[in-house]
């Protein structure tokens, strides 16, 4: 094949499930152009098309792989966790200490997770894991029981409430957006 370099570029930049079809198109086009305009011209045109395609393909591939993997989900969860921890000193001043404000905060976090385009479920799971670990560490230090806290505490009850609060926020936002979409389309 006369387009080894172009094929190499496309394989490197295009999403895996599209690369074969795009390269096939390129070969087909190259063959047709070579008959009409000669090999050198055909090759120049195909190379130009590949080079013009690369930014769109590379950007799209990067966006897809960024949004579709665990690293992204964990990063979002870590960011939300970090923001919550950073806000701890202000909660008391804002009258947000105590049980119900805690539930309200998690409800808001659940709603925020709903805005993540993909992998919201992974972010949700990762965040819950972070919260679980944080709760376990806090309880272990507070009661001085070490890791026995995992067997003898209200940790799981608290975690369940956290999970339900976040899920409620996520579902409420979904429902609101769905209703808004329906109203718009009428």
């Amino acid at each position, binding site marked *: 094949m006369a387009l080894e370099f172009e094929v190499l570029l496309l394989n490197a930049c295009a*999403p895996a499930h599209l690369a074969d079809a795009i390269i096939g198109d390129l070969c087909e086009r190259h063959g047709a152009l070579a008959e009409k305009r000669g090999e050198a011209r055909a090759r120049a045109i195909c190379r130009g098309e590949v080079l013009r395609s690369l930014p*769109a393909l590379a950007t799209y591939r990067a966006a897809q792989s960024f949004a579709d993997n665990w690293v992204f989900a964990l990063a979002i969860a870590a960011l939300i966790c970090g923001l919550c921890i950073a806000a701890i000193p202000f909660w008391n001043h804002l009258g947000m200490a105590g049980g119900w404000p805690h539930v309200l905060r998690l409800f808001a976090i659940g709603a925020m997770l*709903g805005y993540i385009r993909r992998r919201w479920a992974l972010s949700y799971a990762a965040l819950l894991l972070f919260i679980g670990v944080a709760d376990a560490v806090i309880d272990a230090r507070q009661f001085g029981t070490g890791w026995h806290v995992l067997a003898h505490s209200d940790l799981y009850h608290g975690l369940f409430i956290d999970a339900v609060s976040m899920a409620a926020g996520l579902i409420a936002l979904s429902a609101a957006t*769905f209703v808004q979409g329906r109203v718009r389309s009428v």
Partner: protein
Amino acid sequence: MVFRVSRPYLGDFEHLVLLAVIRLADAGYGLAIRDEIVQRTARDVSPGAVYTTLDRLERKGLVRSSVERGTLARDNRVRRRYEITRAGHEAVSAAQRDIRAMSRGLVLRGDH
């Protein structure tokens, strides 16, 4: 996203790609879609832009693709054929309706 807005928003280029897929009916291959847009709009469109847009539309449920076996001319590489879905037809109709509604009564300088 966990929630779905009942009518997906269509970008300018997505709109053109969907119209090309409708025009080509059973021959909605990537190369043909690109040629259709280039010939009708005189836009300089790269194959990469067409394929990424088609993939995005597929994720939105507006087109569906099937894979066909490659030929010798394609170096035995697969061929993807795109078809519009019912949701795609509805999205195009809605977008066209919006454009007609917004253009009605307007005299645009580019028309003369």
